[in-house]
């Protein structure tokens, strides 16, 4: 070991703050194009088909659309060598930020790819060129109507039917989210009925607003941070101990991106954040939820990105980078290993009569549906392309039903199936659970 070099190398202050792209110059500069971000992890490589994990680079073959190209482009942006153009904005935004690249890289090089991609979008907004026009429309909707779609705010709770019991006060607060409140109301109804069936009282927010997923995802961090503060305060004021969500994007926002924006740890939020998957897994295990009704279908499960590789809890970190890129204090990387993989499968395997088959790409290697994080709104053709790629996989395993745990996946898959004329049914995991309950 060259001790002189080791101790003489000047140390540089660094943190995981996504508002400063400079924090990720090391990560961008160390990419060797091994394409761990692109290929399915080799241990789980299914063969010549379904061998890619990156929806953006499948949609457009040029390297610029893969993480390895974006790392080089990011350096050029940071050094002022590349001017913002429409094509450059497309490269930065035609990407569901699904995290497949990030966890793939961390099997090889431990580079912070996901945070770099988020930081690039924040820089685009700071530079006055981002986000895309479709995102600005959503931002306006959220500002004026407190939901993504520009729907009437007062209609947010219209999904509640007479057979659903909502408590005035409870330890569990169900945060419904925009999609399930307005578009996929079946998910909200199913979630509420599952909670009722398990004997768990739940309340709703007095005045629920959007979680701000699209705002954060497209780089509008100031607006997203304000929503985060407002929503966290609302939960604290309600006295809830547990915040339960049925939307994967809401889950990631509450569990990861709110703490990230506020520079606190997930554990310091002051309440627990859980997805319905976690609740149902425990409820089935302790027998408070009893899926007894036979569901006679052959089905498969799509790991939605934000309840799988993107949802490891957040812990703030700042320190120094020194010789050979080593950092101190020790940085525990978020590798996507704490996703709700086994919980979802525990539930699905407990559904009587249903035949569960896995697709070739699962868990950390799952191919994103392509809809999330502002992609479907700005690049609907990418979202449809990715969904159709995934549906090919569903057909490959001859499944009749595709189950996911995210309303945005459900909408996107349903639309792609309709356009394709395929006979596959798409269900949210909440709806699938409910179909097995005798209520």
């Amino acid at each position, binding site marked *: 070991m060259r001790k002189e070099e080791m101790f003489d190398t000047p140390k540089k202050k660094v943190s995981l703050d996504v508002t400063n792209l400079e924090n990720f110059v090391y990560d961008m*500069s*160390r*990419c*060797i*194009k*091994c*394409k*761990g971000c692109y*290929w399915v992890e*080799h241990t789980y*490589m*299914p*063969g*010549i088909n379904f*061998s890619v994990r990156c929806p953006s680079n499948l949609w457009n*073959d*040029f*390297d*610029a*659309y*893969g993480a*390895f*190209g*974006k*790392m*080089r*482009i990011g350096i*050029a942006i940071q050094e002022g*060598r*590349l*001017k913002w*153009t429409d*094509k*450059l904005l497309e*490269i930065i935004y035609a990407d569901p930020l699904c995290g497949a690249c990030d966890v793939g890289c961390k099997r090889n090089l431990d580079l912070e790819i996901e945070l770099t991609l988020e930081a690039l979008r924040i820089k685009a907004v700071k530079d006055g060129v981002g986000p895309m026009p479709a995102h600005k429309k959503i931002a306006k909707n959220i500002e004026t109507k407190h939901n993504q779609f520009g729907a009437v705010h007062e209609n947010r709770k219209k999904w509640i039917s007479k057979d659903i019991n909502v408590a005035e006060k409870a330890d569990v607060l169900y945060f419904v989210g925009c999609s399930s409140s307005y578009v996929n109301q079946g998910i909200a109804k199913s979630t509420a009925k599952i909670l009722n069936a398990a004997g768990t009282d739940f309340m709703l927010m007095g005045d629920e607003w959007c979680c701000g997923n699209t705002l954060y995802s497209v780089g509008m961090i100031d607006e997203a941070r304000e929503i985060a503060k407002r929503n966290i305060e609302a939960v604290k004021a309600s006295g809830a101990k547990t915040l339960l969500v049925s939307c994967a994007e809401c889950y990631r926002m509450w569990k990861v991106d709110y703490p990230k924006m506020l520079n606190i740890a997930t554990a310091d939020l002051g309440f627990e954040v859980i997805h319905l998957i976690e609740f149902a897994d425990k409820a089935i295990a302790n027998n408070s939820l009893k899926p007894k009704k036979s569901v006679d279908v052959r089905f498969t499960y799509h790991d939605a990105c934000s309840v799988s590789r993107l949802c490891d809890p957040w812990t703030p970190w700042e320190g120094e980078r020194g010789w050979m890129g080593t950092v101190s204090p020790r940085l525990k990387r978020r590798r996507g290993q704490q996703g709700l993989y086994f919980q979802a499968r525990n539930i699905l395997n407990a559904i009587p009569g249903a035949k569960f088959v896995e697709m070739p790409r699962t868990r950390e290697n799952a191919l994103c549906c392509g809809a999330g994080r502002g992609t479907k709104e700005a690049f609907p053709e990418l979202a449809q392309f990715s969904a159709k790629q995934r549906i090919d996989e569903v057909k490959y395993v001859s499944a009749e039903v595709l189950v996911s745990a995210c309303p945005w996946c459900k909408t996107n898959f349903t639309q792609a199936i309709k356009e394709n004329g395929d006979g596959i049914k798409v269900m949210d995991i909440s709806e699938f659970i409910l179909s097995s309950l005798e209520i």
Partner: protein
Amino acid sequence: MSIKKEAYNALESVVGSKYLTDDPAICEGYRSGPGGYESGLGYERVMTKIPGAVILPKTTEEVQRIVKICNRYKVPYVPYSTGFYGPRSHCHVENELLVDLKRLNHFEIDEKHFYVVVGSGVIYSPIQQEAMNKGAYVVIGGGGAQASAIANLIGDGWSPLSHRIGLPHRRILGTRARFTRW
């Protein structure tokens, strides 16, 4: 930075506008990064350039036509399979055409004679899995699971199994991946 307009137009007639570009942002994505033992020596920073244009052929015939056009218009070009491990597969002169071969991903397995025919965009790990599905395995050169099988065997592999270290380096007209039974 770009290649000659006449050459660009001719290349566009081969692959169509979707698979040819001289957009600066896309070309920047093909800038060399560090790679293996060259890392830290500055090779990638000092000796490589970003391409003047990038083309993505799908078939061997398209590659042949691209090479002929490059010869006709004196456009320097470099073949590029995955870009893995470094500067050598990137551009080294200004206004060079980078021929990205990732779309050459055809795969054909002959179970009777135990060989595969693959395109330059096919990496080792899917070949290995397909071989294992047939009760066989393929010897992987030193590039690793994510290296292009063809590129690694022909020119730049990192193991005694690669032809660079063996006699036929840069004299190969064809290469063959053979399976061995378990």
